[in-house]
């Protein structure tokens, strides 16, 4: 499969919207999206749950976190529903799925109308394959932990930082659990490094898991038999 650009992968712009808002990217492509994406960010300023409590950049960071939580929750939820993960890995999808869905629910509630839309995900059979599932779970949990860590110092609101670190430590526990199951050392180094937005973006893009929403509706005149 040829490498695709993030724009092709992230057709709804959820990741790009969040990433560009956080990174302060002023590329023409982002400005071109401002009519759509900018509306969400402007809406974020007026979100009643955070109004007066969070800077614009905090809202953007929350949306960035929400997109990663969407990815994780969709991954474990699909694995649980399909029921193809068995044996010692069987407890993972229901346990982690419930937690990641709780993260999504909390962040969405905090963002209110400013929350980015849930993208569609095509996990390409990974949720139906034991080996690939565990490998991806390790990568996702490491990624989530590193992404939260890298943004912590940029969060302006102490209350928001307190909430974010309460999620970060849970992601770190998940990462250690997945690493243990995969036979890797749960905590291999004395100090963890965060992952920057471009690093996270590249990793997410490389999975090709973000897909276009299937087109389910049309305005064409029916040609059914009548």
């Amino acid at each position, binding site marked *: 499969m040829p490498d695709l650009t993030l724009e092709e992968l992230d057709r709804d712009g959820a990741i790009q919207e969040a990433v560009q808002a956080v990174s302060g990217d002023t590329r023409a492509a982002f400005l071109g999206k401002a009519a759509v994406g900018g509306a969400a960010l402007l809406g974020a300023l007026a979100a009643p*749950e*955070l109004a007066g*409590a*969070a800077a614009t950049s905090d809202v953007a960071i929350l949306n960035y976190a929400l997109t990663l939580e969407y990815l994780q929750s969709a991954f474990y*939820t*699909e694995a*649980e*529903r*399909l029921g*193809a993960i068995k044996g010692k890995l069987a407890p993972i999808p*229901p346990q982690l*799925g*419930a*937690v990641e*869905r*709780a*993260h999504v*629910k*909390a*962040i969405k*509630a*905090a963002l209110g109308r400013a929350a980015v839309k849930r993208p*569609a*995900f*095509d*996990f*390409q*059979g990974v949720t*139906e*394959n034991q080996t690939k599932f565990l490998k991806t779970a390790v990568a996702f949990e490491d990624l989530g932990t590193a992404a939260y860590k890298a943004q912590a110092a940029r969060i302006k*609101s*102490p*209350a*928001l*930082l*307190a*909430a974010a670190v*309460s*999620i970060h430590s*849970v992601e770190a526990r998940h990462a250690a659990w997945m690493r243990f199951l995969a036979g890797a050392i749960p905590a291999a180094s004395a100090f963890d490094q965060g992952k920057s937005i471009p690093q996270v973006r590249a990793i997410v893009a490389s999975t090709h898991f973000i*897909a276009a*929403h*299937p*087109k*389910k*509706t*049309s*305005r*064409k*005149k*029916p*040609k*059914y*038999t*009548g």
Partner: protein
Amino acid sequence: MTAVARAFAVAVAAVVAAVVTILVWPHSSAPSRAAEQPERLPASPKPAFVVPRPVRLSHSVAVSYWASVREEALARMAPSAGAPAVADLSTTTPEGTTNIVLVLGRRTDGSGRLWVHVRLPVLPNGRTAWVPRRALGVYGVVHAHLVVNLEGLTATLLRDGRPVFRASIGVGQPQWPTPRGQFYIRNVLTSFSSPFYGPVAFGTSARSSVLTDWPAGGFIGIHGTDAPQVLPGRVSHGCIRLRNEDIVRLWKLMPVGTPLTIR
């Protein structure tokens, strides 16, 4: 004691006094450092939000799955690249929507390739086949199931096994019968201009086994009507007709991908 010795003793005493002063007095002599004592730090801020208690998925027996077709592919009789092909799967429907198939199961072949067992929108009606997972894309989940009763002329929508909608319907005339079997909802058409089809039309995977040369393949639809007075009845070319207020109500309840049983 000599003068030198006294001077040395005084110097030593001064140094000792200075050291003791530094060791004993530093905290009380610097009010600005008081706040650095842990017990005097302000309380931690209250989190901006609290993550709710994790909730497990409810495991309903009435859950079904569909998959979008991402790449054109041959559907085969068995989960093997060497098995006979039974149909070509395209990525879009005649209506321009994403082609979807109903997921029935999965199996991995001897070379580790994952195959998905799917229900197809082809003739003969009810055909199932195997498709490589790589040809499929996004999975969807539905908790609904539409049951059409050709004898009672009713359509009933179940959610998690419980009826949430029921309406009288029109079905095919004897020479153009509505096919019986297991199917699914492929798409939904709205905002078109056709009083004959009403305000909303669902496309299904069912096809007329009589009107095979009908435009776009003779698919059976579920739609509204401009002749509600003939419902319920055997009045159509095979499609399932509902009163316009009923089809609009169904549109709000039934997602694309919903399994359809016609019996």
